[in-house]
């Protein structure tokens, strides 16, 4: 079960509230949902996760947990012992990867029983540390809005605190050594999650892809539902981690590529409002109307419609509404959160009903 780290005096996250990546605050929050920095680290004198047996993994888990407990108030989860629904809640909150929930690495290595853990910084859930995912440690810091610099600074200080208790695998040539050689060097991955409904409606997502391509950044849908990203949520992240300092990588993303994408999206929204006002207004009102009236709703449809409503509110095609409430619904329509809300496991049909009911209730006063 999920429980607080002993002696930390903190409790677990509230699955009834939204989490950092949906707070909708900070710089450029109209387009940028959240910024994330992830550092990959391994211990010097221990086998990397893919080549370690269960006992070795358990040993690393214990060592890392002890180091993590010194960092600050954290909730600790023994992922291998956590029930399926709990793991799914944590995945939906972007606190750990699906891979970590399953315990399976590439090439079929590992399994759900393998010792692995997750630490979540409370109460804000900005910090999450996965232990024994692909690397011994994956330190993740999320900030609402465009705030890669702040996220890096926070991740950096957690990294220093951990290193006081642990010796990292590091080489002069390849930097921080990682299980997968594509992560060596800084071991730092910067990602920005963007809401791009304007570009999507104008079929101009390729513009973003091209801009990202110039700097060999990856563009993909946030929930893995693909190039046709569900909810028009896209994630841009760096592909290379070697040969550039963290500051240079950060600068390339935050000062060069992301501002361009933000400009594209804002321009697209202006075009929709100024040149296609009737069509755009119709679309956002239809989306709202469906959300306020439907009796059965799939996750994908809910997210697509919520995306349009968010666009409508931000462009003032729809009357003013609490944007945080709309953001939070992107999370609450997900399967595990929906079940948590209902207090029981639901069949697919029951989920569709519950999702539609939730949306009707929460959006009753919008418009």
């Amino acid at each position, binding site marked *: 079960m999920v429980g607080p780290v002993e002696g930390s005096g903190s409790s677990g996250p509230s699955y009834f509230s939204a989490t950092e990546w949906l707070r909708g605050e900070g710089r450029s929050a109209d387009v940028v949902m959240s910024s994330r920095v992830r550092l990959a680290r391994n211990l010097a004198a221990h086998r*990397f996760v893919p080549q370690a047996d269960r006992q070795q993994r358990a040993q690393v888990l214990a060592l890392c947990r002890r180091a993590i407990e010194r960092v600050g108030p954290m909730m600790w989860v023994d992922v291998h012992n956590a029930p399926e629904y709990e793991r799914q809640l944590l995945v939906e909150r972007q606190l750990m990867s*699906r891979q970590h929930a399953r315990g399976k690495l*590439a090439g079929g290595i590992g399994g759900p029983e393998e010792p692995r853990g997750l630490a979540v910084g409370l109460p804000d859930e900005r910090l999450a540390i996965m232990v024994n995912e692909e690397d011994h440690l994956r330190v993740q810091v999320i900030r609402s809005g465009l705030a890669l610099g702040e996220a890096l600074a926070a991740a950096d200080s957690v990294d220093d605190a951990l290193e006081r208790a642990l010796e990292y695998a590091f080489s002069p040539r390849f930097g921080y050594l990682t299980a997968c050689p*594509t992560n060596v*060097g800084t071991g730092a991955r910067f990602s920005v999650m963007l809401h791009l409904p304007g570009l999507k409606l104008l079929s101009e997502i390729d513009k973003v892809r091209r801009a990202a391509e110039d700097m060999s950044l990856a563009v993909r849908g946030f929930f*893995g539902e693909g*190039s046709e990203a569900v909810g028009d949520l896209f*994630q841009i992240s760096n592909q290379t981690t070697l040969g550039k300092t963290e500051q240079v990588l950060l600068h*390339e993303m935050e000062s060069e590529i992301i501002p361009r994408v933000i400009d594209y999206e804002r321009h697209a929204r202006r075009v929709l409002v100024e040149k296609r006002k009737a069509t755009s207004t119709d679309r956002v009102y239809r989306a709202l109307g469906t959300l306020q009236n439907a009796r059965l709703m799939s996750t994908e449809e809910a997210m697509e419609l919520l995306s349009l409503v968010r666009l409508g509110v931000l462009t003032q095609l729809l009357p003013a509404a609490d944007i945080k409430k709309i953001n939070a619904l992107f999370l609450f329509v997900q399967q595990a959160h929906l079940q948590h809300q209902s207090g029981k496991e639901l069949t697919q049909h029951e989920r569709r009903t519950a999702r539609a009911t939730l949306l009707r209730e929460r959006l009753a006063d919008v418009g």
Partner: protein
Amino acid sequence: MKCSECGEREATIHETVIINGKSIEKHLCEDCAAKAGLGGQGHLPMHELVATFVKSVAGSEGAGAALTCSVCGLTYARFKQTGLLGCASCYRTFEEKLGPLIERAHEGATHHVGKIPRGALERSRQGGPDRLETLLGSSKEREERLSALRRQLASAVAAEHYEQAASLRDEIRKLDELERGGA
């Protein structure tokens, strides 16, 4: 659309990844995506990319296939299947083969620049120049790193990316100080 892996179930996960200007599309069902470590929290299909890289760089078999890491027992052949290494020593054991692979995956970069574990650095200062070498490499490597940074600095200045130039200058200064302090 059917899953391109099993050809049976419906493909629900579609991912496009752009690497060095080449976009790779994948259409997979939940199960096959899980097997490939795809889907969800922005986890890239790195292993597959590595596997592709390894094949193209090292050929399908070759002399190194039997190479084994003496510390963790991982064979190069196994690495080629999974794209994952077994321990820190693997990087030394397979260095010759990994070098070109890493260079290609990181747009031609050959050496790390950026953060150095601060705790280890502190300890190296107390232990003298030998330790510095374990963190920063031989004097030749250190010189190469500095010239790479100076080149990046020159192009940042030329492109008028002053913030970037400032952070590069800081990095160069930091390394210069380490040279003086550690020697």
